[in-house]
């Protein structure tokens, strides 16, 4: 079926252009298609079309702690997003969190889990490259430190764990997820971030 009139050089140029991973575009499509999608730890950034869950946020549709997710959603969720949430949990809590996410995703249809968090590989490189170990103003925490330890404005803004693409991939696999995409940088933030999209396949 190919036609000889297309110059391959043009096609090659297309193939050799830079990749751009339109994750935002995919998320919009996925949110629209999901029957029940939730955004865990929405903070001040609720997402239209998803049920926004957060213990403290005034924007939350449901104000619960992540440990209460199983009772709130009885295996009938097919899409979960958690943007810059897991780094605020301890490593053992993250294990629990992933396990709960797996459990509340439906067994009868494909369920997707999207996690974004600081990319510790890049954060560390940035920290070393900045060479800002001492702050000239003791009252101000340099941003490069906040990337690692959180902004610390209140109890919920401390970072208690950190991940690389690989470590998060391994963790998700441990709980039965299949990894569909891991990509860094995403989303576009001052703190270098990574995104992993995992799937719980229907039984």
């Amino acid at each position, binding site marked *: 079926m190919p*036609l*000889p*009139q*297309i110059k391959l050089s043009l096609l090659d140029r297309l193939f*050799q252009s830079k990749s751009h991973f339109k994750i935002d*575009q995919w998320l919009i499509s996925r949110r629209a298609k999901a029957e029940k999608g939730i955004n865990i730890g929405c903070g001040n950034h609720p997402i239209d079309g998803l049920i926004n869950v957060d213990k403290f946020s005034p924007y939350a549709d449901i104000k619960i702690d992540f440990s209460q997710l199983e009772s709130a959603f009885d295996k009938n969720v097919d899409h979960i997003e958690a943007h810059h949430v897991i780094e605020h949990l301890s490593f053992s809590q993250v294990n629990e969190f992933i396990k709960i996410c797996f459990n509340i995703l439906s067994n009868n249809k494909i369920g*997707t889990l999207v996690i974004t968090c600081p990319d510790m590989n890049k954060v560390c490189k940035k920290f070393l490259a900045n060479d800002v170990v001492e702050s000239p103003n003791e009252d101000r925490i340099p941003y490069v430190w906040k990337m690692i330890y959180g902004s610390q404005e209140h109890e919920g803004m401390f970072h208690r764990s950190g991940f690389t693409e690989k470590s998060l991939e391994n963790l998700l696999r441990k709980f039965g997820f*299949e*990894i569909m995409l891991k990509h860094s940088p995403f989303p576009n933030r001052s703190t270098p971030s990574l995104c992993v999209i995992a*799937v719980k396949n229907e039984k």
Partner: protein
Amino acid sequence: MRNKLKQLIQNVLNFFGLRIVKISISNSIKIQRSDSSDHKLNEMQINLAAWSAKRNGLMRGDVEKRYLESICAFENGHGGSEFRSFCDLSYKIFSPLFGDTPGELHNSYQFYGTLHLLRMASYPDSGFSNEDDILGDLRSKDEVVILDFGCGLAQKSRSIAKKLKVNGTKVHLMLADISTIRKDFLIWVCEKEQIGCAFYDCTEAEPIPEFPTFDVLVATEVFEHVNNPIKYFDTLNQKFKPNGILITNVCDHTNEFMHISPRLEPLKKHILNNGFLEVQENTIFKKII
């Protein structure tokens, strides 16, 4: 008088970059763009010459010489705009018999198969600059199934297959197209390159043959040539494994012969609404679910 005529013809030809090689009283004028020594056959063309020689019981060198003469008949060879004009002229000449209405297309592809083969053989074999994006996840698999639908000379899919093979991955390459002279040549090339391949004929009765599931779908320069691109995509998508890669080109195409569905924006939207993530604009998509 004859000299003046010769000079006049030469001046006109010079204007178009041609030159007279021989002019005879019988008005038989043989023209060529350049000396064959100015050109070299690319790897695919060398293969095509070797295959043709073997097929017809000829000396390979003789066929290569013929091939160079054929290339030199056109400015920039078979890949240039002059050859394209020649194709356009051929489409016009044979349009009473081979047009591009849906009912005629199949026969037209078969009829123009040789012309298309020469054009395709002029394309360079090319890989990908962003291999990690495309092959990254595939490299971790023990076995990868690739379908090249509307395969042409399968430059992209063979390139992927070869790279994965080097990586130690077992590759199954499925090539699907309307059966033309290209089919036997392609099977011969794959054997030579030691790529295990199976060829599926796209027939009028069964334009999309029954395929096993696959990890990679290469469908470049395909969807603009079919009557209902979304239907084609949906049928192929049923056999697409999750986490697979779609390599295509869904930018809008020009209105030209055999581009019966030049507008592919609706197809792109459809792809994006069906669980695919755009990795590279219009050309590479990753199936998430």
